[in-house]
């Protein structure tokens, strides 16, 4: 007899996958043209943008922090990419590497200030988010710019109905998330999120693990910014985009089964969480609900997702356990 033993994180991923599959099935069924490869590709591109930002959010959350600057790093990367990812293949490649480096640097700066400045992640990333957004404004006072067309087309196209953006996500999981998850510092991040004091006592390298988590978060957000540039062929420093992605990334993380108190969760869950969040918008369209209601529904999904975690409150017998 096969024994199915799932960790809390795996269960979270499965729930997110199931919700997404159900929602996407309804979407495909109500969609007048059906699930053509075009429809799937558009959905994948839209979902992958949020999925990358949500993965960026996951890493700090796993250590027990929160990153309110992922949206700003995403926008900054978009603005930077729209200026430097152009021209011949060599200068395009240099541009891509520069964008990713800048993103990583932004994330690392957050981590360094938080760890060595001994400040709260929330307020540091809130303030640094303003700084990154200000730099993005300096780069792109007006929306515009361009991007290497071949690269952009390649990133957003699909081959045999397999969207390249989905492949990009898979590559990020295989090349960044899984090696990180298995590394010493990756495991340290989980330990910190579970019990920082205990992790410190057992000699876990707390400072380095936290800085790495934030740095990788910046890297993932900048990959997202790069993809956004490929999707829109331009850059725009809009506060509403930054805020929207930051908010939705937190929602995606929660839906993906990652605990906001740290220590439990996975980036794969966040990917499906992101696709769930994006499918909410698509469902509104096929059910002919006024699109201005989208923030309302996204907010409601978020509230339901956090409250689902509160069901444990009802099961607790000793009221004192509520107050950790």
């Amino acid at each position: 007899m096969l024994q199915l033993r799932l960790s809390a994180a795996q269960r979270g991923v499965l729930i997110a996958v199931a919700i997404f599959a159900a929602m996407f099935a309804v979407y495909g069924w109500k969609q007048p043209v059906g699930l053509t490869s075009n429809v799937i590709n558009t959905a994948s591109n839209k979902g992958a943008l949020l999925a990358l930002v949500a993965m960026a959010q996951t890493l700090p959350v796993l250590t027990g922090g929160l990153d309110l600057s992922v949206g700003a790093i995403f926008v900054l990367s978009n603005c930077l990419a729209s200026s430097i990812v152009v021209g011949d293949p060599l200068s395009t490649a240099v541009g891509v590497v520069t964008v990713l480096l800048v993103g990583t640097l932004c994330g690392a700066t957050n981590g360094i200030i938080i760890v060595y400045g001994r400040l709260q992640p929330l307020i540091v990333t809130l303030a640094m988010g303003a700084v990154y957004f200000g730099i993005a404004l300096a780069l792109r006072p007006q929306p515009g710019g361009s991007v290497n067309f071949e690269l952009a087309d390649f990133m957003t196209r699909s081959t045999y109905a397999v969207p390249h953006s989905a492949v990009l996500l898979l590559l990020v999981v295989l090349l960044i998330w899984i090696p990180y998850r298995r590394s010493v510092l990756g495991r340290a991040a989980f330990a910190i999120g579970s019990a920082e004091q205990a992790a410190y006592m057992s000699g876990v390298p707390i400072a380095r693990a936290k800085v790495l988590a934030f740095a990788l978060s910046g890297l993932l957000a900048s990959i997202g910014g790069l993809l956004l540039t490929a999707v829109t062929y331009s850059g725009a420093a809009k506060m509403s985009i930054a805020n929207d992605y930051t908010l939705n990334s937190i929602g995606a993380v929660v839906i993906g089964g990652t605990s906001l108190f740290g220590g439990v969760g996975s980036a794969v869950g966040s990917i499906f969480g992101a696709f769930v969040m994006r499918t909410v918008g698509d469902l509104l369209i096929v059910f002919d609900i006024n699109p201005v209601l989208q923030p309302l529904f996204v907010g409601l999904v978020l509230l339901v997702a956090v409250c689902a975690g509160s069901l444990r409150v009802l099961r607790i017998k000793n009221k004192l356990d509520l107050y950790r």
Partner: protein
Amino acid sequence: MSALKLNTLFRQFDQATLIAFACIVVLLLIGALAEPAFLSPQYLIQQLHTAAFLGVVATGVMLVILLGHIDLSIPWTIGAGGMMATGATGILGPEFGVVLAVPFGILCGVTIGFVNGLGVAYLRAPAMIFTLGMNAVAQGLMVYHTGGFAPQDRATPFMRELAVGHLVPGIPNPLLIWIVLGAVTMFMLNRTTLGRQIYAIGNQERAVFLSGVDTRKVVLIGFMISGACAAATGVLLAGWANRSYQAMGDPYLLPTIAAVILGGTNVLGGRGKYIGTVAGVILITILQSMLSVVQPQRYFAGLGLELPADTFRQVVFGAVIIAMLLLYGRQKVSR
């Protein structure tokens, strides 16, 4: 007797508050070097007038932070307060709408705060996420209410009077409102059971619960006050601009939290003085005002770099907050 009172007053000034006030003086002196008018009474009163809007919303946010939570639904609670107050005539009818515009706007804020409190205190959802979600819900409702455009966005004469009039000569009404609200809050925090409970819950909710206090109710009240204060700011802002508009609260989230924390309130709750928040609010208002008066982008334009003014507002602002927090907001290593 008076020595005793002086002593109590003096105890309100902790180290962070003193540093914050010192920073204000330094900022004003630097500003005066660039622009002598910085030290004129008109300019200072005008700054306090602007600061009052931030001060009112920061009052509520401070209570929530003292409780060990946070309220990220500030932007659209401000928006809801302003838009509901100006839209009251359309919703309640012309005869009630004009009279009840202000209480109606504030009541909408209280409702948002009430839902926040229910989620955080009773469902034990993390405040950060729950209030972010409420922010999106409030945004959705407001955008739906206006249908993407503004049906009725004019402020009533009373709202206008509240925001720009002078009940006491020389003191703009919003400043007066902030002074009264601040005095009541200081009294509440220092002298009443509710105030003591707020500090105690921020320190150790478990212990307060064990001593027989309904801590959930206190947290709920904290969030309701925060919603009320944010909506009141929205009403004042709508009166100030003579109209309400979408995203009117967006520029307030970071400054509010920054003001409270720069004023020495512990982000994790339990510690902080109201006078510190006052210092933080004034500090941030003067910083923002200086950036628009000094216009650092001028110097860059001289170098051939055309940078938007907003760049400096964001970058300098974030950098100064980090610098000041590093100066005195560092956490103790508790090991």
